[in-house]
């Protein structure tokens, strides 16, 4: 063990062993924080798009047309969007759990926090859609 001690201290003295700079850790912390917010935001946009799809297709009314209605629902179901949203939710939970001391929270609690945030953000986006839409259109043009 003494050999260990000597080797480590020699490396430190010779500057062969260096401390990583503080900004490196701050960068990781901020990256995780920002990444988490971006993921939640994108997931809520997909959920808002899902709400828009329900408004557009109106699945309950479509079912009145029987098999034809069902086929319409199935063919227009935004599967890719749903898949991406589920993936983002899982990624959001994983990142959130690894941030700071969040590991102390139970996984159930973390799922509730992330899903609730996404749902609330999607409702907000849906309610204020008219505020966002002209902006989006302008950007596209």
């Amino acid at each position, binding site marked *: *063990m003494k*050999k*260990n*001690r000597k*080797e*480590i*201290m020699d*490396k*430190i*003295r010779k500057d062969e*062993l*260096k*401390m*990583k*700079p*503080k900004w*490196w*850790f701050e960068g990781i912390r901020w990256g995780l924080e920002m990444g988490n917010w971006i993921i939640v935001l994108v997931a809520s946009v997909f959920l808002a798009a899902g709400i828009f799809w329900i408004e557009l297709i109106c699945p309950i009314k479509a079912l009145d047309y029987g098999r034809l209605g069902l086929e319409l629902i199935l063919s227009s179901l935004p599967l890719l969007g749903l898949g991406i949203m589920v993936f983002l939710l899982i990624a959001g939970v994983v990142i959130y759990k690894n941030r700071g001391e969040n*590991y*102390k*929270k*139970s996984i159930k609690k973390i799922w509730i926090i992330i899903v609730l945030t996404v749902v609330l953000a999607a409702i907000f986006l849906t309610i204020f859609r008219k505020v966002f839409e002209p902006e989006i259109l302008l950007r596209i043009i």
Partner: protein
Amino acid sequence: MTDEKIVELVRNGDKEKYSKIVERYEAKMFYYIKRMINQADEEMEDLVQEVLVAAYENLAGFDTKKKFSSWIYRIAHNKAIDYFKKKKMKINVDLGEKEEYWEREGKLPEDIEIDKQDGEELRKAVNSLEIKYREVIWLYYFEDKNYDEISDILRIPISNVGVLLFRAKEKLKRRYEKK
């Protein structure tokens, strides 16, 4: 001087003070890693060196408001798990006959009455546990860590620490009673 104070000094440029940390933790880390993955002493010493080197490299990322011991135990835990995966080792390993900790601290959960003469049986019973239970038993009873510290080391919720300890004690009790 507390560990946290030493870390503060090292971070401010007094690199020599890191020898205090090495001195304080090398034996602890050795027994902790050995408890998880019992291999040749030389290999365990190399792992301890990796832990102490990683701790030095990442010292700027340590939050001095928290306990340094939990932080360095976390690094040791990660290194041991990595080693475990790399070597694809079996879960149950024997700690060997001359484990100092067993001889010195032949104690266990308060609800299992075992005296020092039973140290050998106790050692076998603990070693037969799965690694997650063995680790939590070790940290709580042999390293005197509290729930909060174990939660920081294993990065699991505090309630899970209690559950793991309870299950570990139940398993131990059953295995010990069988004998």
